């Protein structure tokens, strides 16, 4: 095909938006005399149907093979005009735009000056257009499966939605049971639904869904590949219990020599468990697990005269020789729903969390008020003879949130409301108790939140605006030192129980997933979304989505909503079955590449690798671009000393003529 450039230049008036300051006639007349320009026209609205028709007609009748549209920003209408070209069968990447509106007519007043500048911009676009090359958007098949990392409510919801849509889901949960943080909660604000009652059915669904492969007590070990085609290795940790045989009867746990001697993670340390355990009664899968760090048999090699669990298990499910297993799967999309950790209250030593037994965190109180908790839902502190029921209860909000001194500048979004909820529950269970809340601000922004906050105050919970400076012991009592900032009076408040409304933090093992998926973190250290507003569930890595608190603090409704968003984003990929790969990506001239690997290191997406090729019988290393991973930033090409790696549509040889024109050496 004769590919000698025949360029059509179209200067848009944009009504008067451009024409008022730029002499569009003069610009198109100027353009008509530029090299390789076959036709140059101006028209009132190039983006309108008749405007686009003008281009299409000229392509047909004049045999144009390049088009320059001088109008608004390419960020506005590049896609529109690419389509125009494509409709005529011309490659859409034969389009170049000159931005003579945002960058010219709207920012300059002097008509002559603006016209001259518009001419220059058009000239620059023509200079580049003549060197444009046809580009093609490739498509790759999408593996119709999804990996969901994290089995909390976010992961559960996302997994269920995708599975219900008919696609395979691998749900990986680190701990022995799905359920996550929500399973630890007693009631949920502001409706006071029982958390377990609404969560458990979903947990059961996950386990029984034909499309979901639940990999509990497992960790993702390796992820490679790219959108549509991720290859995942999951380590299924040994439970030392044959899950096919275990009936979940629990006799083993009762018999265990360490029964009641190991702090229970599920109960936030408020209760104890055995070395062989079910994290909580409703755990899914309802299979026992031996804690390899505690079990005497596994740590010391012997357990009395023989492991009692093994003797007790009628099903013969105990297997101390079990090994970790590696499960490999291929997925098209990945949802990260790894959740959060609560703030470590010990980092605020002034509140005495480490020093006083009756300073507890909200999560610990959550377990105390829960019917499934260690006290059966009774708010009792201490053990045996020391046990007592608190009468004076204080909550302190914003512990580890909105606090630069501990590095958490953000608001954790849930503490105000869970404080109100817990205060309500305390009042409900101990009607005689005096409950007060020390707060900075009450942020009751959600649906039904303000109403609930009001209700709790009407129930007699006192809200005191002031951030306590210190908690110390005086006799049996704890003394809270604070200032009531609304009354400007200092307070010394004697209480029995202090509950710290600890904030939400990124998981302490957040790094693992970052390394696996090349995610970024925002300033608050939560995972960074692709765009805070318009792509809140996407990440910079195509095909990887975020759900729940791994992206930032959220309450349950928001988490579920985001999980559904992530699921639907994954489904967009899976159900279309194909994913388009950008056309303006990098490519390597292997003949001149010297294989130094600079581009490999520069590429933020790991899209470039060094491969060995045969150059006249000699084996040499050259760079090669994985087109599915390249996002087309071009950073590689600026770092290439031999100019061997170039970005399509932004090649050195296409930009240099632009510089020449704009520099304009006379």
């Amino acid at each position: 095909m004769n590919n000698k450039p025949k360029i059509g230049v179209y200067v848009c008036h944009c009504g008067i938006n451009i024409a008022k300051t730029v002499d569009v006639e003069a610009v198109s007349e100027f353009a008509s005399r530029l090299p390789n320009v076959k036709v140059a026209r101006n028209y009132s609205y190039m983006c309108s149907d008749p405007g686009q028709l003008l281009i299409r007609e000229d392509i047909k009748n004049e045999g144009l093979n390049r088009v320059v549209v001088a109008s608004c920003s390419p960020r506005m209408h590049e896609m529109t005009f690419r389509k125009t070209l494509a409709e005529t069968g011309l490659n859409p990447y034969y389009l170049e735009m000159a931005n003579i509106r945002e960058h010219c007519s709207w920012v300059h007043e002097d008509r002559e000056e603006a016209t001259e500048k518009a001419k220059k911009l058009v000239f620059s676009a023509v200079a580049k257009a003549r060197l444009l090359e046809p580009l093609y958007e490739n498509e790759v098949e999408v593996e119709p499966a999804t990996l969901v990392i994290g089995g909390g409510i976010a992961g559960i919801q996302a997994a269920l939605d995708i599975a219900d849509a008919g696609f395979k889901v691998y749900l990986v949960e680190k701990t022995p049971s799905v359920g996550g943080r929500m399973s630890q909660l007693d009631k949920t604000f502001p409706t006071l639904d029982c958390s377990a009652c609404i969560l458990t059915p979903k947990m059961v669904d996950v386990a029984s869904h034909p499309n979901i492969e639940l990999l509990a007590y497992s960790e993702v070990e390796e992820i490679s590949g790219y959108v549509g085609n991720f290859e995942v290795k999951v380590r299924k940790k040994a439970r030392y219990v044959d899950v096919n045989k275990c009936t979940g009867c629990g006799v083993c746990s009762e018999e265990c020599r360490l029964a009641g001697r190991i702090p229970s993670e599920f109960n936030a340390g408020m209760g104890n468990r055995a070395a062989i355990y079910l994290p909580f009664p409703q755990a899914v899968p309802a299979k026992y697990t031996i804690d390899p760090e505690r079990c005497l048999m596994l740590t010391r090699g012997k357990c009395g005269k023989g492991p009692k669990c093994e003797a007790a298990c009628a099903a013969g499910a105990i297997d101390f020789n079990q090994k970790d297993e590696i499960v490999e799967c291929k997925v098209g999309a990945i949802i990260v729903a790894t959740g959060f950790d609560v703030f470590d209250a010990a980092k605020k030593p002034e509140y005495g969390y480490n020093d006083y037994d009756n300073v507890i965190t909200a999560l610990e109180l959550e377990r105390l008020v829960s019917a499934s908790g260690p006290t059966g839902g009774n708010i009792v502190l201490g053990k045996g003879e020391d046990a007592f029921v608190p009468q004076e209860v204080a909550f302190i909000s914003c512990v580890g949130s909105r606090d630069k001194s501990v590095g958490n500048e953000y608001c954790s979004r849930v503490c105000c409301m869970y404080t109100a909820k817990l205060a309500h529950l305390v009042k409900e269970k101990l009607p005689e108790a005096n409950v007060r809340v020390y707060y900075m601000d009450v942020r009751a922004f959600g649906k039904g939140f303000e109403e609930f906050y009001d209700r709790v105050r009407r129930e007699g919970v006192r809200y005191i605006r002031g951030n306590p400076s210190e908690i110390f012991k005086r006799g049996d009592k704890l003394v809270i030192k604070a200032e009531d900032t609304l009354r400007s009076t200092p307070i010394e408040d004697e209480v029995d129980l202090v509950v710290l409304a600890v904030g939400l933090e990124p998981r302490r093992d957040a790094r693992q997933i970052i390394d696996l998926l090349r995610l970024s973190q925002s300033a608050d250290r939560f995972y960074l979304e692709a765009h805070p507003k318009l792509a809140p569930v996407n990440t910079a890595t195509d095909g990887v989505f975020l759900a729940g608190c791994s992206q930032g603090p959220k309450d349950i409704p928001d988490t579920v909503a985001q999980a559904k968003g992530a699921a639907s984003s994954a489904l967009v990929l899976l159900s279309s079955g194909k994913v388009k790969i950008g056309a303006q990506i990098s490519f390597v001239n292997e003949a001149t590449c010297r294989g130094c690997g600079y581009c490999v290191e520069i590429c933020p997406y790991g899209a470039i690798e060094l491969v060995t090729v045969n150059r006249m019988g000699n084996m040499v290393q050259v760079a090669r671009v994985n087109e599915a991973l390249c996002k087309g930033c071009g950073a590689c090409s600026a770092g290439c000393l031999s100019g061997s790696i170039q970005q399509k549509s932004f090649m050195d040889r296409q930009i240099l003529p632009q510089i020449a024109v704009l520099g304009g050496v006379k």
Partner: protein
Amino acid sequence: MSEQYDPNIVAFLCNWCSYAGADLAGTSRTHYPANINIIRVMCSGRVNPLFIINALQQGADGVLVSGCHPGDCHYMEGNFYARRRFGLMKELLEYVGVDPKRFNMSWVSASEGSKWKDVVEDVVEKAKEAGPFEQFRRNKINW
């Protein structure tokens, strides 16, 4: 240097922040000098350091590279590479006696239309102070 001297500035803007910021300046009808001529690239990390020397050679009196603020790069890291490259490019140019006012780099985000105006005014003013660039300007047009 004559009173009428109108510097010619070539600017390389990243598509996602600075180019969008310049678009916003337009949408907000912010007026600024017409001396600036923009070349769009996808990322400030795409700007080959040789572009800077080339622009001066091909007739620019000043060159500007503008990208996203650190941490905001659409491609996560491109502007960090740009920062390193152009910090040294500025040193090199200054060392051979090119007026440091001629080469500038800025961070302009998509929401900083007014900052873009300030940057343009600033670099135009600086280029005016530096006067027409003659030192290694090429003598004929390249195409």
